């Protein structure tokens, strides 16, 4: 059987899970304060950033440091709970499917959920920006290509983090510890991005990337340039390491 059909099965399993409305709720909560306080975007002379860019980037900062990592953790819980709550996993293991493929398919589902979160957030951004434009009588709406670029950067930089959380959720059997260790890693990422070793800490990637984007847009802030080396090789290695290890462990915990 092909990988595609395993993938479609994995998507079927999360039916009726209501995770998308939850993502929508998170996105609305993210943009709502920005819309009401849209006037503060005009007071950014010190930073030297245009109001419309500030409006976008402040929201992106919020999502990249907490909401996106948290959404990924919640998604890992969702994926694991659907398997465990009624022993569905036992049926899966007693069917002729390779556990490696199963694990990979689930990881892809996780990535798609993360992408959905980013897309929903970008969608709500446009609604929010339109409302703010109306209230403030100033055009906050940015060209789609730019918003798309920022969203894509955010998503891609979150992949190593997703791999890490996926590994945690598979290797740590007690849910309280797998969720807890995930969150404990999220909180200090604010501190880690200020250190030189940020590239060794996948959880800080999205926040770091968006912070750099911010500094690029703001003329008043020193532009921090991302050092692609060693970042890209390290991120790649961490991602591959996490995926390989999770595939090796997957299914083993049930046997």
């Amino acid at each position, binding site marked *: 059987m092909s990988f595609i059909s395993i993938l479609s099965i994995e998507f079927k399993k999360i039916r009726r899970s209501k995770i998308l409305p939850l993502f929508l709720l998170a996105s609305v909560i993210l943009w709502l*304060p920005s819309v009401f306080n849209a006037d503060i975007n005009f007071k950014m002379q010190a930073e030297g950033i245009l109001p419309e860019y500030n409006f976008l980037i402040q929201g992106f900062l*919020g999502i990249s440091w907490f909401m996106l990592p948290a959404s990924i953790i919640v998604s890992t819980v969702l994926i694991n709970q659907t398997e465990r709550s009624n022993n569905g996993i036992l049926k899966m293991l007693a069917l002729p499917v390779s556990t490696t493929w199963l694990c990979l398919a689930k990881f892809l589902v996780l990535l798609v959920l993360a992408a959905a979160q980013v897309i929903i957030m970008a969608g709500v951004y446009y609604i929010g920006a339109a409302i703010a434009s109306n209230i403030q009588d100033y055009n906050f709406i940015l060209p789609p290509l730019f918003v798309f670029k920022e969203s894509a950067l955010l998503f891609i930089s979150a992949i190593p983090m997703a791999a890490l959380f996926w590994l945690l959720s598979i290797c740590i059997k*007690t849910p*309280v510890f797998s969720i*807890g260790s995930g969150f404990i890693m999220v909180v200090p990422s604010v501190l880690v991005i200020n250190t030189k070793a940020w590239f060794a800490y996948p959880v800080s990637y999205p926040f770091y990337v968006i912070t750099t984007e911010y500094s690029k847009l703001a003329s008043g802030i020193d532009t921090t340039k991302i050092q692609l080396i060693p970042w890209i090789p390290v991120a790649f290695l961490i991602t591959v390491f996490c995926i390989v290890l999770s595939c090796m462990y997957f299914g083993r915990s049930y046997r």
Partner: protein
Amino acid sequence: MGFIIECKKVKRTGFIPAFICAGIFSAAIPVINMAVRHKIYTSSAGSPVNILFNANWQVMAMLNMLAVVICACIIYNSEYAGNAMQKMHLLPVHEGYMFLGKFVLMFLMCIAILAIESAGIMFCTDYWFGSGSQVLYLVLKSFAYEMVIMVPAALSALFIASAFKNMWITLGVCVVCIFMATMLPMDNFILSLFPFAMPFQVFAGTAEKTIQGFIAASFIESIIIIIAEFLLIKIRRLFE
């Protein structure tokens, strides 16, 4: 009685170690922060307790909230996972008392977490500011205050956990609530009354009137949430 049973139920779920770990971790935050940047902080004006809270409490409170949320998830997941809840319905206990028993357990763990954190803060004031025991009273008062304003958040997390059978929904809703709390402006009294936002408040350097306001709000919110839980149980009975 209910409380002792609840203690038994969380055996081997990692509930107590999780709280202790979270406490140690968040107590380590001011210590690490001071160790790295003590020059900035020791040279700034104001009382040591004030400085430490301003510098670290946002992250520490965040960790506390996450610990509370995760533990609320676990407490009720053990109830729903093996269909134990059904068994509980068949026994002569009111589900509401079970909720209160769970709350007492959670509250004790919150006290434990705050005690570990106050030890961390005390260590910082003593080691870097050399203020010794004279700030002890202020630190204890601060943490007593945190304890009181944390109650509605703990109750809300338990309320949400009791409402949803799927642990991930509980987790998702609570995480969104915490996220919302971080988005709310701290200096706005009305908005800070949101249960998940209150624990981010600090004692030191806050006007006495505001403090009294938050304490009163904490009591009122707690009672409202408990009533809501009892109503939820009643309403759910009608539909099941």
